[in-house]
């Protein structure tokens, strides 16, 4: 099976590290997705126009299909929306007709059999937990990690088919391969708040804060994401991309610093595989590592 790498729009500017590290981890594990030029998956425009969003997804999938690749993405919103579009196209003939007509001038056609998958299932199921465990040469013993599942990969589960929507385990399984101790936390499956960022910042930040609080209450030392949007919202990277607001002396809008380290899964896994050093905030103080 060959994959086309579908980084999604937010990687190049907002989170280039996540894209680079994911590819590095994948290639070390023997998965070599092909880099291609794709258009947006359509997720950001879904609330504005179903047609625009499904057309975007269908075009991206058709481009991959024409090159003979399946799609692999590190972003859960891209993943969820591409799956959603596949379902919508198979469910609604009117939409299918409109999309087919719009793709025809470019010589593209929708392929309902294309596989769309996400970084986590590829790591945990395709590469396999055993192979990942074997590749982990510098495990992170006893790091208490909170897996942040994100919404759009899990739900709606009939469409995404990612994991058990109420009781997923795939992320925790992967964290264990790195030697982390996954914590059980109340808001594990809740929204990070990113969809409201820029639209209703107060709610967006309240959602993020509630997530930090829940993870810390459960004793987590690090919050681990596997989605570009979640990482942008919860991670420190979001701060640097924030636009300066008028009349504030050029300073960025004050956003609370994340009260705990938030890292994308590939950064952590790559560190455990010895590809790069562990992030400073995650290095346990000397003498504590051996205890656990």
């Amino acid at each position, binding site marked *: 099976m060959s994959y086309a790498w579908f980084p999604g729009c937010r990687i190049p500017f907002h989170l280039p590290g996540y894209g680079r590290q994911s590819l590095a981890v994948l290639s070390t594990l023997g998965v070599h997705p092909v880099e291609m030029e794709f258009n947006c998956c359509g997720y950001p425009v879904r609330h504005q126009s179903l047609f625009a969003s499904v057309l975007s997804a269908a075009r991206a999938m058709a481009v991959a299909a024409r090159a003979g690749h399946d799609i692999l993405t590190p972003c859960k919103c891209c993943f969820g929306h591409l799956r959603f579009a596949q379902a919508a196209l198979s469910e609604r003939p009117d939409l299918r007709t409109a999309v087919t007509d719009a793709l025809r001038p470019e010589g593209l056609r929708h392929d309902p*059999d*294309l596989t769309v998958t996400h970084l986590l299932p590829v790591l945990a199921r395709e590469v396999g937990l055993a192979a990942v465990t074997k590749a982990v040469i510098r495990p992170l013993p006893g790091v208490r990690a909170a897996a942040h599942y994100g919404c759009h990969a899990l739900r709606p589960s009939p469409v995404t088919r990612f994991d*058990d*929507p*109420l*009781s997923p385990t795939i992320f925790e399984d992967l964290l264990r391969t790195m030697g982390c101790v996954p914590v059980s936390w109340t808001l594990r499956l809740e929204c990070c708040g990113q969809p409201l960022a820029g639209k209703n910042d107060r709610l967006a930040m309240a959602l993020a804060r509630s997530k930090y609080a829940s993870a810390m209450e459960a004793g987590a030392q690090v919050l681990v994401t596997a989605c570009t949007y979640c990482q942008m919202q919860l991670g420190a990277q979001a701060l640097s991309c924030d636009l300066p607001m008028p009349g504030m002396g050029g300073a960025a809008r004050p956003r609370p610093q994340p009260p705990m380290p938030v890292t994308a899964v590939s950064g952590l896994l790559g560190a455990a595989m010895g590809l790069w050093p562990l992030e400073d905030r995650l290095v346990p103080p000397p003498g504590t590592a051996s205890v656990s």
Partner: protein
Amino acid sequence: MTVQSLPRHDVDLMVIGTGLAGMAAAAMAVRRGLSVALAGTSGESVYASGLLDLLAVHPVKDGRLWDDPFAALAALAADEPGHPYARLDRPGIEAAFAAFTAFLGEIGLDYHGHDGKNAMVLTPVGTIKHTYRVPAGMWAADAGIRTTPPALIVDFYGLKGFSSAQIAQTAGVFWPGLAHVRLPFPGGRPAPYPEPMALALESHKTRQELAKALSPHLRGREMVGFPAVLGIYRTRETLAALSELLGTPVFEIPTIPPAVTGLRLKAAFEEAMPERGVVTFFQKLVLGVRAEADGFACDVGWSSAEAQVRARGVILATGRFFGKGLVPHRKGVIEPLFGLPVVQPAARSQWHRDRMFDPAGHPINRAGLMTDDRFRPLWADGQPAFDGLYAVGSILAGHDWTRQKCGAGLALATAYAAVEDFAGRR
């Protein structure tokens, strides 16, 4: 493009249904060392009160309440030999309850009760409900009703279907001196629904604010009753902390469904099942089952198959109408998954009696599957449908659990019996 094949799982036992019966069956099967898969939608479990009834009313047309559920069982077995309880004995039922409450304790939900005796809790309208095992949060009410100390009932602005004034007035008949108070929910949180409230009360800050707001009303009060919103995921801690802050025993009164009480069970199960190695398909349906030489092949999914499970045995715990274990059609009730014959009134006109609130209940509420003594459903000719297929819980024929107050006991005891039988055959 590659068309990916469906994920496949091979297990000993497939449990279909994630209500109380399905959950209990899965928990007990894990306890017996079986490998288990579990599929079902949340269905009725979000409406559960959390109370574990055994049997409180018999005969329903007289509405007779029993203090001793086992005496009631004996009377029921004599009067209604077609009732599933008639196939069970007391040690089996007690073992089922013991095993299940022990399991609940392991996953953070403590239960209490009297040996061989029903306990009493307050209902949201101020009446008494008799039940066999009580969640820790409601347990103090049993002592309260028996000893009637001066107590305070609390409710919150905006919370629908729950009035402390009404409870104090109605319960005042048997529990004199009940005071009541209505407070704004601490922190000024706006969403007047039990789940957000319960989640908020898991935070220490909210509990402190609540205790502070309550302090002027506590003088001389030896017990405080709340709507059942004292936590969802960490009820043990929430209850203990609030009790300590107030300095009095605290008890919960169930709220109208969907209540937090059901969510507690659901959430704890959802976390515990995968931890115990159960292959879970929550919010999924078993779309089709094929009998094979040594068991069953089940297609699991929502609108189309998403996974396939092969199991030696199947426990059907899909409930009655709300759980969609039974589906009413114009000409009769069917069991959609296996097409098993359903015991039901001969004609649709006989489904209900003339009066809606007839104390005897309605014949349709006793419809369900007929089984043998090992809870294997039968074909019309009286033979077990499949060797490894069991039916447990409310899908069984011959009971009226809502009126007899026997839903939980039926679920636990039949699940226990079916699992024991299946495990014993190995």
